[in-house]
């Protein structure tokens, strides 16, 4: 949204904001605070967002330590435990999908593989796809959004057109189609990490217009502000204006939207794996486990609830943290 010059003038006259007044209750001298400090203070007060953040960090640690944790508390992901399976129904022996001290999250129907270890490794794939594709979207979106907003003219027309076009696209259908025609392994990577690469490319590519639109809009309004004009009048080149003046002011919205597309990416990755075009079996993925659970959920619901619950918790945690971050960085969004 373009604020226009009047709005900026008004900004200068309304310096003592409500937050500043709150913070000044002590006897401490008034010191200037950067946006980072202000945002951090606000974020710390938001207990829900902090809880979300803690869960996110916990999940990241779990994903990184997956090999260690599965060694200590679980079994290798591809080890079959036929003795845990009821031969007549091919469901796990024991209640709740075979949850026991030995198998913390139970065992997989038919094969008896350890669900706990598969969930850990699933977290690894899920989070790496989500983070890397968010990175790809952010990078492309920022570059194109900046170019469109800053250069204007035909560049803006072309980029905006492409963004509109991509947003009006049957995306999931297309992602499925693309993922299924791309090769299974390349660059000497195993099929697991090649697939991760393909998913990152496809999900990242379809995500960039969301970031691009926001960056473009913000750039359009920042471009007209006095500090840019001042910088230009002092003889700054376009490169300096872009990277020293505009980009630091765009950091907050970019960070917020990058955080908020991560949960969407997790859902998309799981959806693709659920449909059988994501991470190929026998590599573990949450979506893939849900897809296996379709055959068994009426008799062994636990095998569906565990991966589904993991997706839910992860996505919820990211959403809570992202919402909190947005509120902290942009008080107007409240």
């Amino acid at each position, binding site marked *: 949204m373009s604020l226009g010059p009047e709005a900026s003038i008004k900004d200068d006259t309304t310096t003592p904001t409500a937050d500043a007044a709150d913070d000044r209750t002590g006897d401490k001298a008034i010191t200037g605070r950067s946006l980072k400090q202000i945002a951090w203070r606000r974020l710390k007060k938001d207990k829900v967002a902090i809880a979300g953040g803690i869960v996110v960090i916990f999940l990241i640690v779990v994903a990184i330590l997956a090999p260690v944790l599965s060694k200590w508390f679980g079994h290798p992901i591809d080890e079959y435990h036929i003795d845990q399976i009821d031969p007549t129904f091919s469901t796990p022996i024991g209640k709740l999908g075979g949850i026991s001290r030995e198998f913390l999250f139970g065992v997989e129907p038919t094969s008896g593989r350890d669900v706990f270890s598969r969930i850990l490794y699933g977290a690894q794939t899920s989070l790496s796809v989500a983070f890397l594709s968010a990175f790809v979207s952010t990078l492309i979106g920022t570059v194109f959004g900046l170019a469109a907003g800053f250069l204007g003219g035909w560049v803006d027309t072309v980029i905006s057109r492409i963004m509109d*076009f991509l947003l*009006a*696209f*049957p995306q*999931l*259908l*297309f992602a*499925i*189609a*693309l993922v*299924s*025609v*791309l*090769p299974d392994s390349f660059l000497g990577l195993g099929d697991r990490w090649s697939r991760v690469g393909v998913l990152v490319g496809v999900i990242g590519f379809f995500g960039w217009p969301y970031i691009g639109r926001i960056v473009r809009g913000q750039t359009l309004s920042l471009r007209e502000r006095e500090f840019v004009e001042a910088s230009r009048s002092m003889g700054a080149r376009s490169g300096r204006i872009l990277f020293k003046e505009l980009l630091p002011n765009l950091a907050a919205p970019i960070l917020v939207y990058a955080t908020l597309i991560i*949960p969407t990416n997790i*859902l998309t990755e*799981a*959806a693709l794996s*659920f*449909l*059988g*075009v994501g991470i190929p079996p026998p590599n573990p993925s949450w*979506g893939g486990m*849900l*897809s296996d*659970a*379709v055959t068994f*959920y*009426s008799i062994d*619901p636990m095998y*569906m*609830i565990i991966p*589904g619950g993991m*997706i*839910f918790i992860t*996505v*919820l945690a990211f*959403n*809570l943290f992202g919402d909190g971050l947005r509120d902290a960085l942009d008080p107007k969004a409240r």
Partner: protein
Amino acid sequence: MLAYLIRRLINAVITLLVVTAVTFGIFFLVPKATGSDPALLYIGKTSDAASVEGIRVKMGLDDPIVVQYGKFLKGLVAGRDYANGPDVQHCPAPCLGYSFKTDQEVTPLLLGDLPVTLSLALGAAVLWLIMGISTGVISALRRGSIIDRTVMTGALAGVSLPIYFTGLLSSAIFVYWLGWLPQGNYVPFTESPGDWFIQLLLPWITLAFLFAATYARLTRANMLETLGEDYVRTARAKGLRERTVIGKHALRSGLTPIVTVFGLDLGALLGGAVLTETVFNLRGLGYQALTAIRGNDLPIILGVTLIAAAFIVFANLIVDLVYGIIDPRVRLA
């Protein structure tokens, strides 16, 4: 207004052309790069070289890709004849070709799947609009109350839940555990409206819940913003009853952004709710598309992508037109 409409229609057609061209390109170039032969896909691997060659000529699979694309477009508008000597197959407009796998004509095949997707999407849309908007408005009016907090917590959970989980979970509970709903498959409305309703009830509710969550959040945010506007204060100052202030003044502009989102969501769903259809085993457009993608059945993939994109593009167009009517501040030009 007319000029605007014409320009928008031309834009819509261009978008559809680009979508088909891109789909066409991907599905012809990528198999070429990985070394598989569309003619072989069409006729099956066991056939002898002569019949493969026959199919290749008949379907025009040896033409350059641009020529093939041109023929596809011509078939779409005017129908098309597939011919190899005396063996002629006529495909009337709008022709989307023949399935590689089953040799069925694609257009009637997809038209046959459309009612399933339409029933699913429209039924769910009615539900989620009612659920989402009413809870969103109530939350905004009772901001900070227990109702508000409960609704918003539920909505946040809703946007974090994927349909491929809630779908399985709800059928595990309502079909297998409680036994409230029967097991079974889609029944056409024309066959038995009662069974049609019962069979679609769970897909509707599950799908609608997820969308309702987004709509409740959106409605609440919009309503809160509108309620803070000067004209709402003016309306109150005039001494209007609260019901009139909310119902006539605040709702109208508070709900306009919902129209945009609704158009896009419905458009996207009509093109095939791949996940919902897969979870509930509904044989609609999305299911058809998924099967086609797994079997490399290009004509069907192309057909579904085109229909899906058409729904999105036209939903967008309708939204923009409707927007001009409900929000007088928007000028169409």
